[in-house]
């Protein structure tokens, strides 16, 4: 099972999706926008982005890393 560059790109993408689901750069920030904390809006937006990227993964890269899968 050899890994290609695209594999590593996806692994890196997933790592970023995990890492920034919590807006660490807003640590201690208490600004409020439309009744909810700004950091919560970031999180909600990020989760939607995550869903979109996951969807792209299922379209483009599904079966990656699973070994040889015959369809």
């Amino acid at each position, binding site marked *: *099972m050899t890994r290609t560059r695209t594999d590593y790109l996806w692994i890196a993408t*997933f790592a970023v*999706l*995990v890492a920034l*689901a*919590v*807006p*660490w750069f*807003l*640590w*201690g*920030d*208490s600004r*409020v926008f*439309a*009744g*909810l*904390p700004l*950091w*919560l809006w970031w*999180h*909600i937006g990020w*989760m*939607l982005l*995550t*869903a979109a990227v*996951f*969807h792209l*993964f*299922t379209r483009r890269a*599904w*079966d990656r*890393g*699973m*070994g*040889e*899968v*015959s*369809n």
Partner: protein
Amino acid sequence: MVSALGIQLGVVGVYLVVALAIGLLAYRLTSSDAEDYYLAGRSIGTVVLLFTTFATLLSAFTFFGGPDLAFRAGPEWILVMGVMDGVLFAILWYVVGYKQWLVGKVHGYVTLGEMLGDRFGSKRLRALVAGISLFWLFPYVMLQQMGAGEAIVGLTNGAIPYWAGAAGITVFMIAYVVIAGLRGVAWTDTLQGLFMLGVVWLAVGWVAVAAGGPTALSNALATNKPEFLALGGGLYSPQFIISTAVTIAFGVAMFPQINQRFFVAKSGKVLKRSFALWPVLVVLLFVPAFLLGTWAAGLGISVPEGANVLPVLLNEYTPVWFAALVVAGAMAAMMSSSDSMLLSGSSYFTRDLYRPFVNPSATDAREAWLARIGVAVFATLTFVASLFRPGTLVEVGDTAFGGFAQMALPVIVALYWPKTTRSGMFAGIIGSQAFYLAHVFVPPVDLAGVTLFGATYLTWDFALWGMLLSALLTVGVSVLTVAAPEENQQRFSEGIRAD
């Protein structure tokens, strides 16, 4: 007050009857063999798979523990849930779940222990995995029954005693799990999941309107609990957020009722669609549920000792029937996780312990009957335990996620690395369980300025160190040992098909 009690019991009662009717409907479609009983003949579609896993993930925590936590410590728990269930678990859904589905379809596996036992040619490994899983599962089911009993006491102001509430829920669950198997569980879970989502959004809307809108609510927070609006602080350190999210996400993937879901999808397409929908579903449920707890803190709601914040808040701002509907939602959450745990627990027992060690020639029909008896016995035992609430069991239940998380990395290593050996698996699983259990039960000791058996090492949770140890042992011992002749090293890498 009598009429309020009548309304509350009526709402909960109607809900239970609907769930039972769905269970009966599923029974008509279930044949008598074990694969159909445990796995609904591997024929579960997208919506049902997504909701059954989702409802199973949600325990009493969504409605009681979670909002209570947000009420006391602030809303950052939303982030923990998001990272954990929305992103990390979704990735594990692919890495562990999809791989298990591929492998399970070819070789007909029903349980995690069966899959590992076959790959490593070891009945003892199979039994070990089942045994450890049952050890952590049992007290966790007991906690759910305790929650159900307490919810009914809270709802009826003690008119129905604790034991009767817990017993009622237990009997009800046994009835539809025994009758309908996984198909019934999955269908009722779907109903329960949709119901919970609907109810929690109605609750948020209702409270927001009654209290003057989200801006008024955040102003109240800024006045009464300004620290809740700022990200972090108090309980929430970066280490806490990361440790909690990682150990629970990996633990969830090894919980029997979740792990067994990985074998049930009808096609790869079903897993694909569910994968992309995870983050959305998690946001849809947990943001409103935990906001309610947070808002209650801003509104200065006072919660009596031992009560949960959500019913108190709803009784203040919404009509009686609606508060009862939310408690019914909470019971739905408890039942939808417990019913699946009962079913999986019983399948681990019959497939991995009874069949290989007691009666290898048991027929499929006999096994399916035994599984039903297993469900009843398991539920009855956890119910009896929930009456006595032994402190040790409560502690095991509270630390169950971390306990399951210790198995995750050895399993992932085995799934992807053909050079993993049986000795490596034994070392990784037993070593990390011993480490973890020692930290749960042995009191902290100071040794030359270093605290051993404390909650953290270098500010990181011991469960995380246990996981690291499990991976190191599995890989390290595998490198040092040679595969036994009866191991099937190519089991997980060759001949898998997605169609």
